[in-house]
């Protein structure tokens, strides 16, 4: 065998981890180790918090959903009985339907109102007036949902409420806001949207400010109308913000409790009873914590599924600059 002998070159096996390590300095510096340690130290409290206050309760709920427990006596093993019970309970099934209907109406209305107002506030107006609008639209979000609902209950009262009085002044007959199925859902949605749209509004205002003015200016030079500019430029460039607002909005809407609880107590009949209301009533009023946990687990699964679907769809509809 000579030195000129040509040997087939055997490629080194691909080992990305080794390759990355080879690209690093010969030895990991103490500074890097220190930085990593610091990063871990900073993250640790949050991770511990998430584990203690989120992961453990979720696991606890799943475990509890397999038991019968009334707070007073020790839990008894129930297996899948709680799930069988709730899946045949018409109130539970109706509450899931109501919650989905509420979610669709509330989130659509909330995003629409927030977007329109954000575009309006982002238009030409004095800076101080813009601040006034921003504060006014955000203000309901910092109020307690229960307090707002108490006020709304008075406003929507069919017999003595100012809303019907106002409608009456323009000849619209009294609307049974809280005492008819459609009226009650409408009142709950309106009360919820009034409080919640401020969050999406702020997100949209931030998102609109991030859209380069030059793009709109170029479109204007090309003769695009105002509506056209918003449809063709604003909305696509705002789609990442829309995704965040809709994900948060849907998660919140699926957990709605205070507004229907205070305004209608779930009625008339079950027409505004939501899943979280059923969880509360089953656990704290009927002392069936196992079944309540089972409903909670199903709601958790629903939220996860809807959120995953949103992110899946976002690949097609969300445009990043």
């Amino acid at each position: 065998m000579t030195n000129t002998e040509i040997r087939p070159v055997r490629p080194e096996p691909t080992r990305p981890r080794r390759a990355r390590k080879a690209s690093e300095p010969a030895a990991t510096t103490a500074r890097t180790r220190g930085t990593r340690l610091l990063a871990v130290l900073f993250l640790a409290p949050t991770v511990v918090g998430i584990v203690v206050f989120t992961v453990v309760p979720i696991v606890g709920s799943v475990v509890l959903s397999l038991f019968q427990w009334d707070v007073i006596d020790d839990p008894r093993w129930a297996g899948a009985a709680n799930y069988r019970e709730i899946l045949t309970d018409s109130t539970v099934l109706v509450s899931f339907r109501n919650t989905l209907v509420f979610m669709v109406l509330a989130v659509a209305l909330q995003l629409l109102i927030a977007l329109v107002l954000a575009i309006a506030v982002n238009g030409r107006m004095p800076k101080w007036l813009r601040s006034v609008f921003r504060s006014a639209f955000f203000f309901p979000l910092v109020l307690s949902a229960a307090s707002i609902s108490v006020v709304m209950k008075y406003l929507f009262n069919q017999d003595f409420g100012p809303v019907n009085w106002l409608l009456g002044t323009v000849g619209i007959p009294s609307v049974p806001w809280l005492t008819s199925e459609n009226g009650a859902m409408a009142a709950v949605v309106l009360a919820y949207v009034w409080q919640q749209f401020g969050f999406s509004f702020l997100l949209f205002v931030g998102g609109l400010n991030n859209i380069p003015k030059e793009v709109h200016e170029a479109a204007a030079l090309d003769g695009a109308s105002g509506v056209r500019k918003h449809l063709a430029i604003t909305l696509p460039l705002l789609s990442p913000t829309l995704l965040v607002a809709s994900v948060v909005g849907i998660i919140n809407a699926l957990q709605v409790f205070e507004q229907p609880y205070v305004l209608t107590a779930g009625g008339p009949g079950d027409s505004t009873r939501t899943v979280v209301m059923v969880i509360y009533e089953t656990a704290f009023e009927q002392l069936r914590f196992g079944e309540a946990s089972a409903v909670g687990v199903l709601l958790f699964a629903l939220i996860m599924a809807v959120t995953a679907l949103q992110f899946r769809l976002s690949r097609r509809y969300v445009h990043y600059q």
Partner: protein
Amino acid sequence: MTDSLLSRRGLMRYGAYGAGAAAVAGVAAGWDRLIAADIPGRDDGSLVIATLGSAFNLDAQRALRDGFREVHPDIKIRINPVQAYDWSDFFSKILTQIAAGTAPDLVYVATEGVQLFAQRLGVPLDRWAKRDAAELRSYFADVHPSLVESMMYEGSLYQLPVEFNAADMYLNTRVLERAGADLPDNDWTHDDFTTLLRAMKRSNGAGFTPYFWTNRLWGGVVPWLFAGGTNLLAESKAPGGDWLWNSFYPEAQRRGRGGGYRWTTPLADSDRVAEVYDYLASLIQEDLCTRPEGGDGRNLVGVFSTGRVGVTPAGGFWAGGLHEAGMKPTDYDVRYFPRRHTRRHQFGAAGYAMLRTSKMRDEAWEFIKYAARKDVMTQLFAANQTTPARRSMVDAARYRETGPAHWQVFYDTLDKIPSTGPIPAPPQVNEVEQLLIKHTGTALASPGAVRPALRRLQGDLEKAMEREV
């Protein structure tokens, strides 16, 4: 190697930070600070009494606490007022405290929760009541046996009632005047009632509601069921209780008494119940009353006192509320509930229940006796926010300032109508009330909805009553 040097310095710096943080933490740990154990009465051997926060005002609570300390200086007590929207909410919070291991010794419990607490959490008071019979004789002589019977469960006594409220009918006299109507006779009927509401409607403008009612167990559809000669659940009496009746009540008053009420088979799909719902539906369709869900007791005093409502069911508790709202004693009056097949009325009562978890049972009993004393109840109920369970306290002097003129109705509802009884409140009461509210709303939502809704109510009640609490 510069990096290496820097790293050592860095490590020393982080070490110094760590030592500093540990020192700060150590100082903070050693600092005097407020912790849960510092709450007065917590874990110091106090007798803990949970009351519905809104039931007594702060002065009354202070009087209750200070007065008891004077009589029993050796017993430490702590009043724990629990804020809650209604009894159901209150019980939920008490159960949460029990689950958290901070159960009170005594809980103020109304009829709604008597059987739930008795079955699951309560201690019968029989042995103490027998032991102190001589001391209690004057109390029982002053309290109607119906109230006492409503606090019994399966032959045992669980509470001494200190207050009650029967559902009578309040009428706004200014609205009556505008309608050209007199105060109805105490023996009035449903027809008289409907006629009066129509007259009120005619003589008052838009925005006026003749009859206002709420959708709940007490004061909702139940008094109408009682007047209609029926109930939500079949009613019977548990055996036992002779020890109490024979010791404290004369023959005439103890006849027919038992060991407490039993509510069993649902009656929601019976013709009598449907008849009552049909009547209420007709009032709604004629626009003579609010829809039940529209009624909310929180703004009721306001709309009644300003003349936007003519009639509403309430107990003695409303005298104080209307007085505070500025109504003069002559601005309103009270009558029995209009009769249909019977004149039976409903009531709800309240008293202190002793919990099984209590380690201070003898001390708790002393408090129960103390709270049922006339002088104590006089202090507690000075504002007429309820009807005292002691007959002798319901007198002209009490209602001189607040009204109503016919205050006698409050206790006469028990004394003159012997059939008057408590609202149906089995141990499954929370679910029963939820179902009643839900299906009443549906039944009265549209014409023709009564019977289908009552059939669903019947099915759901049967399921609830079969369930172990």
